[in-house]
């Protein structure tokens, strides 16, 4: 059964079973993943290819003012009917939710570009394996101190269909290819790990050789270990390190559910200065080729651009229709769901804008500080306060404008709001990492413990 047919049947059956309103969401995703690694000491070459085809349908029904969900992976009429009935039955026993107003009304989906590449539907499996074999063997040969190299790639295509009883009807396809190379080396007892990779909507944007070369450079820098004293230092976050921290320390803080319940440190701070005046953060669901760009969100609300922070001032949170209606405003198009889960809020492409300089200059200006490639422990961030306590790993010491070596076991504790206030400038090495689109970003006088 086609997805669009499945969602129409689901909504129709819900209305027949006395739903006041109903919405169905169906998805089918196909993924091919290849995991490979070579190990010098054991000589083991490990290879695994996998394929996945997962489909599912989720129904949301409203009976009076009661909402309920149910889902199934069996897309035939009988199962859909059973799923609808489960949801209806559940809605009838749940207390009404006086704060629920309505499902979204139909609006024209946003025209977006660059989210679907037909080449990813039938990925070049043989050529990819061939290239991976080359990359692994060349990467390991690049330095006698390299011990293990791994390279993974996945090709995903997803089709989604959304339909509700008010007339919303949207379906679209999107693709993502994700690839990376990781190298582990050991020299004079010092272990160093280097990774580089990228996700893209387009197959041709992926360049395994480039990732290998950059990973090699990172491992080599890490072979030198140096020391830096504890204290307030200049700290540069790479886009990947910042994304890991922001997922737990910022994205959840602008989620309207957490905000409305008073569980976010940004509750009640609209119009206030919450970051350096140089800093602007935009949530953009319309950006060409963005990993989080789609015509609409999963409720069929057109994608848009939302300014979150402008010149340091908090302008908006991110909403789905439920949280938006509670404040008598429009959804920002940030509803997210998998067919197994109820609707939650998720960021689109979050773009960080500020004072841009060349990356070399960003590093050259540092007298004493660190540049962080990854963080550990971001998930323990307390979203109610924004307080985090993380290990910066891997991270490298910068002294007098030069990266001089790796620092082992460096910890950073503070609140995310304080960190945003310490923003000074950013590089020109813009990358998309998950939902974040940002270059390396510099913060001054950040307390580090080593």
């Amino acid at each position, binding site marked *: 059964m086609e997805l669009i047919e499945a969602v129409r049947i689901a909504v129709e059956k819900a209305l027949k079973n006395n739903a006041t309103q109903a919405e169905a969401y169906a998805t089918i995703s196909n993924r*091919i993943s*290849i995991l490979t*690694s070579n*190990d*010098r*000491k*054991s*000589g*083991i*070459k*490990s*290879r*695994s*290819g*996998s*394929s*996945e085809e*997962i*489909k*599912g349908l989720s129904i949301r029904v409203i009976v009076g003012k009661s909402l309920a969900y*149910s*889902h*199934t*992976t*069996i897309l035939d009429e009988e199962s859909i009917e059973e799923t609808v009935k*489960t949801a209806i039955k*559940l809605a009838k026993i*749940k207390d009404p939710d006086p704060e629920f107003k309505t499902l979204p009304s139909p609006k024209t989906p946003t025209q977006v570009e660059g989210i679907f590449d037909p080449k990813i539907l039938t990925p070049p*499996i043989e050529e990819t*394996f061939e290239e991976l*074999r080359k990359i692994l063997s060349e990467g390991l040969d690049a330095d006698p101190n390299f011990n*293990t190299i791994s390279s993974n790639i996945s090709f995903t295509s997803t089709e989604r269909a959304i339909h509700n009883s008010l007339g919303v009807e949207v379906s679209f396809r999107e693709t993502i290819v994700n690839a990376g190379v990781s190298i*582990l080396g050991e020299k004079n007892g010092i*272990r*160093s*790990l280097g990774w580089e990779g990228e996700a893209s909507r387009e197959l041709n944007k992926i360049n395994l050789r480039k990732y290998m070369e950059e990973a090699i450079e990172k491992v080599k820098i890490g072979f030198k270990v140096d020391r830096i004293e*504890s204290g307030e230092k200049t700290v540069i976050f790479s886009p990947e390190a910042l994304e890991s921290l922001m997922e737990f320390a910022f994205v959840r803080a602008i989620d309207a559910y957490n905000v409305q*319940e*008073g569980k976010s440190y940004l509750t009640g701070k609209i119009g206030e200065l919450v970051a350096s005046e140089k800093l602007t953060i935009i949530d953009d669901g319309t950006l060409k080729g963005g990993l989080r760009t789609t015509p609409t969100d999963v409720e069929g609300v057109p994608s848009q651009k939302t300014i979150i922070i402008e010149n340091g001032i908090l302008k908006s949170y991110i909403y789905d229709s439920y949280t938006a209606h509670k404040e008598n405003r429009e959804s920002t198009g940030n509803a997210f769901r998998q067919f*197994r889960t*109820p609707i939650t809020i998720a960021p689109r492409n979050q773009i960080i804008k500020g004072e841009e300089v060349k990356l070399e200059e960003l590093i050259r200006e540092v007298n004493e500080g660190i540049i962080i490639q990854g963080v*550990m*422990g971001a998930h*323990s961030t*307390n*979203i*109610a*306060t924004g*307080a*985090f*306590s993380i*290990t910066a790993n*891997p991270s490298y010491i910068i002294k007098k404008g030069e990266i001089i070596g790796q620092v082992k*076991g460096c*910890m*950073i*504790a*503070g609140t995310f709001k304080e960190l945003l206030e310490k923003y000074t400038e950013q590089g020109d090495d813009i990358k998309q990492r998950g939902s974040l689109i940002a270059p390396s970003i510099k913060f001054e006088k950040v*307390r580090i*413990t080593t």
Partner: protein
Amino acid sequence: MMDLLIWLVNKGVNEGLEYVEARYQKFHSTDIEVRDGKVISAVPGIEQGVAIRVLFKGGWGFSTTNSISKDSLQSALTTAIKMAKQSSIDTEPVKLAPSTITMDKVKVYVKEPLEEVSIEEKIKFLLNVDNVAREISPNIKTTSNYNDYSEYKIICTSDGTQLEINNSWVYWGMWAYAREAGLIQSYRDRFAMLGGFEVTEKMNAEERSREAAKKAMELLKAKPAPGGKFTVVIDGVLSGLLAHEAIGHASEADGVLRGTSILRGKLGEKIGSEHVTLMDDATINGRFGTDVYDDEGIRAQRKVIIQKGILKGYLTNREAAGKMGLPLTGNARAQDYRFQPIVRMTNTFFQPGDMNFEELIEDIKYGIYAKGGRGGQVSPAEGIFQFGAQEAYIIKNGEITDRLRDFSMSGFILETLKNVTGVAKDFDIYPSFCGKMGQSMRNTCGGPHMRIENMMVGGRM
């Protein structure tokens, strides 16, 4: 369904594959979320699918689908074979550790089957435990979750193993948020066990929920933690996190085999002080990490990983055990039909010692006492780990004094366990979901109170 899997496995064998493993799974789940006494969502769901894993001349292929018909399974098998053939081009043969042929049907003990309990009753349970937390103070807000899961699983391999497994579990978790004069603090707790709805009676959820609210209120008075190196005493929940992050992951033999664990080549070596004995035990009745068989059909076991500081064993799957000549431990686990089995921990814990808590702290001039887990992370390849605590206190001259907040610790796998200088005789064990290679797996980790010297603490002062 067993017949369909046997048909599929035989088809694979006829194609010249060395090993074929087919796994069918159907599960019912219920996810309920309550915030501040209001039911946000209550989602019942049913899902089923089949996973096929094949081995051809040293190359692995895997395919998963939730379309269950002969045609779609045939097509999934074809894809898996295509992948395996590509994987095999430059690899050496894989010799799987020999397994005994097992024909068995197992069922976790369930008193009140989840499907016989109405969703109203499940909602009522959660609303009640959510409400009692907010009775502690008008300044408390809450988020509470209830999840249950019952599965029927078939594992069928080309070696002749045929297993039918019925499993069931219940999870409860909550966050309490305390607000006062512009300050917000949070505290979380959870409980989970295998079994039916009767698990909710063993949870002590009401008391735990009230306790979490009180702790969140107390944290409002806490001060930021100091940064630096300290003597640290951790409770059983945190020593469990240490067991899991600092050593458990590094002892997973798939990483050891691929060269991404710092513990490679360390079998028989001293990697901890004599106080350190670490177990992984999949056989504890009803514990959240317990299995009877793993997803390769190997009997799950009780294993010693570290005995009195000496590394005694790794957790294995059939490939790693075969290649490294190690015993099979039954640790190949998959989150569900969408995933390949990978080496995972089950119930992992440090063995208690013989000291009292007071003896652990009495000669500490200046140190830190930390309790309760806030999650952790490890890089087994580099040998560094990190974990967060919910509560912490300064220890001054053997006395517990000022309360701290936002506290986390970091250390190196090969150093930290050598710095364990005391282990208490108490014991605590805690359920969690652990993430690895995109798979979330149920497990528990635990241990006694432990004293560790020279531990790195992240702080703001």
